[in-house]
């Protein structure tokens, strides 16, 4: 019993972390599921979204005179909201551009897509370095959401809970979208049998473009929500894409709930290991992956996928 009480805060921590991991993996999962493409640039789009939002929230408008002064005087909450929406939208545009570049690799081996997005990740990261510098930066959050509260004898950050709640909300929205809308049905059908969907008169080329844009949008939203917790550096993308990749494979490629379960599982493992051996917490997830994949070759809830060839 004692152990359970001691563990409780770590479990709460782990659950919130797991929801955040799930949020990161959402956009990644969408692109993998529909296009059977591993988007290694996911993490860079994540970082790019956060940088865009940061610039929108706290722009350097000294040369704009009155308009600039007016904008900066707007409440932070409003600017934060603006940053979230516009930043995510801009990243969706970048994602569309990337998808257009990807087109020549369709129908070839999956490695080409992987390599192309690796190159894209490098390019985006270097662009961030040039534009915003390579130092650690700070993404402000509205006052309402910052601060901390005490429960039991642990101090929790308020923002973390908002973020986890938002993660759960986004997971729910994406689930609704995939399950309850005709667009979602089209996406899933396109993943299942693209030729048939094309024959039914769906413009698959455009569908792929939108799906990629949507995936990029989700990456950017995750970035804007998460960087206040994890800090904003140009190479935050690499730190993020690997857990996302890992969660998808752990959950099973093409499985929505598999990814969410895997996200929560990874969150719990990282938090609990972190409580006892903090240095090794991030490594525990790789070991988890290897253990699971050794026994369940397609992940927890995975189905057969063309990526195996």
């Amino acid at each position: 019993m004692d152990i359970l009480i001691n563990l409780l805060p770590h479990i709460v921590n782990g659950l919130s972390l797991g929801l955040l991991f799930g949020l990161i993996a959402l956009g990644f999962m969408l692109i993998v599921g529909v296009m059977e493409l591993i988007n290694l640039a996911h993490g860079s789009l994540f970082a790019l979204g956060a940088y865009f939002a940061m610039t929108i929230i706290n722009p350097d408008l000294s040369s704009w005179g009155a308009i600039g002064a007016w904008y900066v005087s707007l409440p932070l909450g409003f600017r934060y909201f603006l940053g979230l929406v516009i930043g995510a939208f801009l990243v969706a545009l970048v994602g569309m551009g990337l998808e257009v570049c990807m087109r020549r690799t369709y129908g070839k081996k999956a490695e080409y897509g992987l390599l192309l997005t690796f190159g894209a990740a490098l390019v985006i990261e270097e662009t961030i370095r040039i534009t915003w510098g390579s130092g650690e930066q700070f993404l402000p959050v509205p006052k309402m959401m910052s601060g901390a509260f005490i429960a039991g004898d642990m101090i929790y950050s308020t923002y973390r809970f908002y973020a986890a709640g938002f993660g759960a909300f986004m997971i729910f929205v994406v689930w609704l979208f995939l399950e309850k809308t005709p667009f979602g049905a089209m996406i899933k059908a396109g993943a299942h049998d693209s030729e048939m969907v094309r024959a039914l008169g769906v413009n698959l080329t455009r569908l792929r473009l939108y799906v990629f844009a949507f995936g990029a949008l989700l990456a950017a939203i995750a970035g804007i929500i998460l960087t206040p917790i994890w800090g904003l550096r140009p190479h935050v993308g690499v730190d993020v894409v690997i857990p996302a990749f890992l969660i998808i494979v752990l959950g099973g490629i093409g499985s929505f709930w598999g990814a969410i379960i895997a996200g929560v599982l990874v969150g719990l493992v990282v938090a609990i290991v972190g409580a006892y051996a903090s240095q090794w917490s991030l490594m525990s997830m790789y070991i988890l992956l290897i253990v699971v994949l050794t026994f369940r070759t397609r992940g927890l809830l995975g189905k057969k996928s063309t990526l195996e060839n």
Partner: protein
Amino acid sequence: MNQRVAQSSNPLLTNDSGEHSHRVALTTQKTAIITKQMICMFIILGTFPLWSEWVGLYNYLGAEIAIWIIYALGFNLLLGYTGLPSFGHGAFFGIGAYAYGLTQLGIIESVWAGIFFSVLAGGIAAAVVACFISHRRGIYYALMTIAFGQIFWFTSMRWHTLTGGEDGLLNIHRGELNLGFFSFSLSETSSLFYFIFAIVMLVTVGLWRLVHSPYGKALQAIRMNEMRARFLGYNVWLIKWSVFMISGAIAGLAGGLFALVQQSAYPDVMSLHASGLIVMLTLIGGGFVSYWGPVLGAIVFFMARDTLGAMTETWLLWYGLMFMLVIIFKPEGIAGLWQDLMKRREKRQLKVNGSTENASGEAK
């Protein structure tokens, strides 16, 4: 039937059943041990210290390029010949470097022992990893190599007492190279370069032989169609396992040499970034279509780093863009471009020959 009996007496060509005549067909083409391209490369690389300063480069760069040529050639055995994308190869490079450093600092100050242990450590680590991944293909293979690469990288960062943490092992002396009858100091960069160059020659010739052996043909059969290779009677798992181990051992060798040159070993070379760079470098050079792809790739990469890097601080951006363009428009890389050029010339030659024949025919 007679042929079959003769064949099964050769253990290299047969397995237990001894009736895979296609293997004979695969091995009948003779390949020269040393080719024109090889001599060309050896001459260009071997004379590097003579002309490097003249074109504004420096000797140390030659040593670096030579090490990465070894690394990339070993890597391409996996990527180009067997079609297995490893995104965690930096781990074996790093393990080789640490093994070299630990041998020098902890056991014995000998270049040969260091290199021996770096090859051994790289090979053993790769053999263990290969046990977990050899039944996999494609993206899952890539992912598992990433996961293992990250584990090794993490361990090297955290295991302070052994690896020195993020700073790594420092003060590894270059020492003396004992050749039996005489020994010379490796502290001078040009003697160091020639030592590494000798190893490059050995590795180049050795791998060239390997990829043109029946084993090398089996690797290519696996790349083209793994299932077909299995149906033809190859033990695909064992071949994939062994090629990963060989590739890891060569990466370990390169890593050991890297520690010798840098006089230190640190975890940076094991990161995902560094592992990705070797993939990029091999592909830009054209590892998919040519044995020489990785060599070209290593040369282009370091030249780009030094020339572009001198002009702008953002050379990685340009290199990344170049890589994207290569993947989009010419996945066969520089070697592929070269082959296209040669083919076009050949065609033109044929056309010219054809037209002269026609002309002479008309004259008759």
